[in-house]
């Protein structure tokens, strides 16, 4: 029975932005790369994301943010993850992310940043590398 080494990922759309094409196609790409993917759906509060990640016991939370609010959202989520005992879960951020913000996100504790246009291959291997 193949059970070990499965990576469980929560792809989450925080906040009010509804552009979900990117999140959805990344879900499909992750599935095809052998991940177990939980999709949060749209309009999620950070509290909903934290609780979903807790209940689903995921290894990675992948945020998809197109509204430009990636810095405040990531900062707040990381604080909430630490507070809720999820400090060991990896956080990745994708969407409309200007390159100049990537170092800031990484300093905050974001494990990987996948700006729009990042290839599926880079996303899936990038996520797998987090667990090597």
């Amino acid at each position, binding site marked *: *029975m*193949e*059970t*070990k080494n*499965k990576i*469980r990922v929560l792809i989450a759309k925080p906040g009010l932005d509804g552009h979900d094409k990117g999140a959805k196609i990344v*879900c*499909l790409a*992750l*599935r*095809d*790369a*052998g*991940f*177990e*993917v*939980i*999709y*949060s*759906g749209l309009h*999620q*509060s950070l*509290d*909903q994301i934290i*609780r*979903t990640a*807790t*209940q*689903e*016991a995921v290894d990675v939370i992948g945020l998809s943010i197109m509204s430009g609010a990636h810095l405040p959202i990531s900062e707040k989520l990381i604080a909430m993850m630490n507070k*809720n*005992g*999820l400090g060991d879960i990896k956080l990745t951020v994708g969407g409309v992310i200007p390159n100049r913000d990537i170092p800031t996100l990484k300093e905050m504790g974001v494990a990987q940043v996948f700006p729009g246009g990042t290839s599926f291959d880079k996303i899936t291997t990038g996520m797998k590398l987090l667990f090597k």
Partner: protein
Amino acid sequence: MLKIDDIRSGSHLAGARLIRLIEDNEPSAIELLKSLYANTGKAFIIGITGSPGVGKSTLIDALIFQFRELSKKVAVIAVDPTSPYTGGAILGDRLRMQRHATDPDVFIRSMASRGQTGGLSRAAKDATTVLDAMGFDIIIIETVGAGQAQFDIASLAHCVGIVSIPSSGDGIQAVKAGILETGDIFIVNKSDTPDADLSFIELCGMLEMRQSREFLRTLPPGLPPKTDNGHPTWQPKVLKTIAQDGTGIKELTHTFLSYLDFMKKNNLLKSKQKTQEKLYFKTLLKDLILEKINGFMDESKYVETALNDIQLNITDPISAAQHVVNKTIGHKIKE
């Protein structure tokens, strides 16, 4: 790391992580699981099954709402198929239930079938044990139809709800799939669509036939159907719902609860649980023995010798296999 007391006191974090360990076949889960059994047996386990697209998740979302109105703590295990090609899965059932995500008395866990096509793995069964020990009053298991698997829903749930949507000929499908025999409550969802009444009547008719088959088995005639121990049996119910707007869900909730009452009152729940435990126990035995043999085959010199002996015509394959099994089973299993 994981503390048994945290699970017993209902910590979502601890419970979820134990379920993950179980799912990943981590040995560390075994000891924790063992010590949880003393805390189980309180939850009412409901199975919800039906073909894709009949609205199971939406229905469960509405059920959660109703059970919460009755102050019941609710856990859900939603099983989705693993892709046989990639081993991956998108687990999207909770998408419809996400409004309950922040309710501390609701716990939703998606599970990939991981090879147990159409059915449930031992992990799903063990997950209900964890959730039961966490103190949930209701555990709902969502799964797609029946299939080849370690457990089907009827061997896990106390009560099985089978969801279908109006469409002529669905009843025939149900008979073919054998699900008619396993259902305790039949739900015709999306009943605002044409053919709803037809499907309803068709299902009722088929259940009557099922009843009379059972009736014939429980002669003498003229008396209400009885089981072996002389108690009346549950008469399957058919209900119409529109999960999307909540129509019929209150009634469905009460039907589930009245099923539980009925089963308890007539001492049927105990006997059902006994049958289920028996199956679980047998599965455990099979798994353990298989594991043993697998391990043995990988490392044992007996297997190597036997294969050589077969090749050299010193022994026949049947005798050699019997020898290996005797050696294996005789080998002490770590307890």
